[in-house]
């Protein structure tokens, strides 16, 4: 059977709902290069599409996992997923990312580039802000330029720095000139922080965007209410009349609120409560396979652990299958010590999987010459799952004569005091929108967050070349080479990619995983409806 991307599935379902005949669909499939082999898939989708026809109306209450005075409506200042949810309700970006993180047009109707350096974005016409003003290139130029202004304090300042010049080339067209070629610019602009706001806005007590919901109420640390934007530019959307969003920091309280019927959608639940949710009638768990991972970090510049044989021994010591079932109840995907996960379009599936192999671990450990010296590994609840991973590795280490000393430290202050400082500790990396961003942030030789201090000039060259490469197939080959280099040489052990889990009432429909985050990449608001 042929696998359809969520975007393609969406198009087919929409066609069927509009009453398209089988012939229409097949014609569209042909034009999309999918072919007749997909017919079986289509048939299934046809049935589901009819059962799942979106209904208009109704309101839901949704709880995220945090709520604090840091809640914001300023796209440049978003830090937590709860901010992403809010901003996705009220704003749009130029592009949006689909199920395998390919950029799709949103407020930009189309985009094009000259050698991946000079980019032209044609804006959608007739899009209105919530106050009725029409969106023009001036708004877009303002929204993007403010990230570069140090006074704004934008979270995305580093990403925005590559945009050397952002100018309007017409009322509905902008041109962005980059400092160097980057084929991923449309991906970058599809990320959370690059939402489009009105020209000149500096006050974010409320949100005036182009999004599917209008901001009716916003009270930081308490709640936000969005009501349907009747003039939304996506026909038929959104489906719900109102969404009330707030944070319940305590997980048990969040799940109880769902089970008690106070909320309909709970964001961010941990694997051990999935059973409780699934056992209750009328509730479901929504799994998003993502690129999030907790990784073992071995500093290559710090003896005695900074030794390639010792690193290899640690990689072979990870019983990934056991970690997957014991720590994550199966809600994880086995990883291969490199950071690009299977949902990413540049994932290389041909890379041989590193097994749990005590013999090989013992061989490399012997070569490292460490002997019976006790080796500290720092674990903390801050790097989720790391205390359990540490204990499992300690057990395995005993069998090869390695004396691993697991030191558990509190979550508070972990990132400032231990991460990037200890010889061996754990990190926890959120999903990133592109392989380029991920590798530039965490693996480039001079990256401040190069966790294991792994330096390889060849890798850096390849990274720059892949960023500039417009041809997707050639890029894929380059990323594949880089994945190979990381898994073999870097001081990073990535045992698993952790799925993001949410829970909702069964009547809440329309959720499709988008790996930038849980809750449909935090963009559920315009896509869900109540059955």
């Amino acid at each position, binding site marked *: 059977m042929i696998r359809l991307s969520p975007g393609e599935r969406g198009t087919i379902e929409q066609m069927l709902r509009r009453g398209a005949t089988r012939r229409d669909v097949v014609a569209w499939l042909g034009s999309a290069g999918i072919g007749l082999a997909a017919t079986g898939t289509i048939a299934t989708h046809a049935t589901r599409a009819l059962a799942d026809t979106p209904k208009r109306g109704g309101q839901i209450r949704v709880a995220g996992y945090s709520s604090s*005075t840091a809640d914001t409506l300023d796209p440049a200042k978003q830090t937590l997923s709860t901010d992403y949810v809010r901003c996705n309700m009220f704003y749009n970006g130029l592009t949006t990312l689909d199920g395998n993180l390919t950029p799709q047009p949103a407020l930009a109707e189309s985009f094009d580039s000259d050698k991946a350096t000079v980019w032209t974005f044609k804006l959608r016409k007739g899009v209105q802000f919530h106050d009725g003003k029409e969106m023009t290139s001036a708004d877009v130029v303002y929204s993007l330029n403010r990230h570069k202004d140090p006074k704004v304090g934008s979270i995305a*300042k580093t990403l925005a720095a590559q945009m050397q010049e952002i100018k309007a080339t017409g009322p509905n067209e902008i041109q962005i000139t980059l400092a160097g070629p980057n084929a991923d610019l449309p991906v970058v602009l599809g990320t959370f922080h690059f939402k489009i706001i009105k020209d000149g806005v500096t006050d974010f007590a409320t949100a005036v965007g182009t999004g599917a919901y209008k901001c009716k109420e916003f009270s930081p640390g308490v709640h936000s209410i969005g009501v349907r934007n009747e003039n939304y530019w996506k026909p038929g959307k959104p489906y719900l009349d109102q969404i009330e969003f707030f944070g*319940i*920091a305590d997980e048990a309280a969040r799940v109880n*609120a769902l089970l008690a019927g106070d909320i309909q959608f709970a964001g961010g639940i941990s694997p051990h409560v999935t059973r409780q949710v699934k056992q209750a009638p009328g509730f479901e768990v929504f799994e998003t396979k993502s690129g999030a991972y907790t990784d073992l970090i071995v500093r290559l510049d710090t003896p005695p652990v900074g030794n390639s044989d010792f690193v290899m021994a640690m990689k072979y010591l990870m019983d990934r299958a056991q970690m997957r079932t014991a720590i994550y109840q199966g809600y994880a995907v086995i990883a291969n010590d490199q950071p690009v996960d299977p949902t990413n379009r540049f994932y290389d599936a041909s890379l041989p999987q590193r097994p749990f192999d005590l013999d090989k671990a013992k061989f490399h450990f012997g070569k490292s010459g460490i002997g019976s010296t006790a080796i500290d590994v720092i674990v903390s609840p801050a790097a989720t799952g790391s205390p359990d991973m540490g204990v499992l590795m300690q057990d395995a280490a005993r069998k090869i004569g390695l004396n691993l000393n697991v030191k558990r430290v509190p979550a508070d202050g972990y*990132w400032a005091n231990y991460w990037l400082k200890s010889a061996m500790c754990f990190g926890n990396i959120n999903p990133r929108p592109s392989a380029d961003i991920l590798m530039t942030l965490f693996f480039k030789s001079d990256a401040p967050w190069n966790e294991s201090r792994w330096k390889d000039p060849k890798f850096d060259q390849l990274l720059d070349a892949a960023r500039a490469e417009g041809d997707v197939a050639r890029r894929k080959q380059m990323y594949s080479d880089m994945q190979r280099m990381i898994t073999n040489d870097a001081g990073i052990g990535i045992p698993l990619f952790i799925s993001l889990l949410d829970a909702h009432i069964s009547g809440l429909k329309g959720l499709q995983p988008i790996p930038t985050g849980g809750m449909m990449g935090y963009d559920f608001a315009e896509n869900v409806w109540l059955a």
Partner: protein
Amino acid sequence: MPRLIASRLAISLLTLLIVSMLVFVATELLPGDVAQAVLGQSATPDAVAALRSVMHLDQPGWWRYLTWLGGLLDGDLGRSLVNHIPVAQLIGSRLPNSLLLAAVTAAVCVPVALTLGIIAAIRRGSLYDRVAGVLMVSAVSVPEFLVATLAVLLFAVNLHWLPAISYGGSIHSPLQFFRVFALPVLTLSFVIIAQMARMTRAALISVLDSSYIEMALLKGARPVRVVLYHALPNALGPIVNAVALSLSFLLGGVIIVETIFNYPGLAKLMVDAVATRDMPLVQACAMVFCTAYLLLVTFADVCAILSNPRLRDR
């Protein structure tokens, strides 16, 4: 009397100043700072440095403390470092919630606790006294989060009678008011009633043991009269003290209840602020709690003095 209150107020101000210094130093000692907390996984070294200078975190600690203190003397609590909303506004939006929860809980607990305590004192040694004693000790020893969680599981998740979370924003009728406050108040009542009742009992018993009570009984006064007219006025000081202390707990110590029921009160605001190292907000919350505590304790002292003729005329 006025002199006493004046000196009390002066000491309170000094206490506040010392507390603000301690809180500031403690916040400084915590690992990480607000710039790192705000930036999270985007906290690259240059981004942190830029944000630090915008927030004046690159200035020395004493300078920041004095600036804050100067602002406070001008009546300006400053702005939250995290979201630039004035601290006064943030506190203003949460304080009424905390006061309301405290008021409702007090209104439920005080009469119940006093009644239970007084009856236990009168019937000292009876079966009622012993059973009540055991129950009270158990209630004090059960942690609040357990009571809260069990209550939620029973009344919200299984029976669907009451909501699992209490957000006060949607109250339009007495029934809704009851539904919102039932579980948090129930949880808080457990500990508070038990504590207050035990202290009331102890205070009353020590008075009932004194010889003038024996005298009153020998004169043939009825027990109810002896308790209400002879004993209770003399036990009032310690009882008010117990009530005041329990109430100060209601303002600041309800963090678990606020967390489990997602109630937007002041304690949660302060915990948020500590987590993000938001100094002006932490300081302001600490000041509010400290002021409330001092006010309640002063109030208790004044009551104790008023109820005691020997102290009253000094």
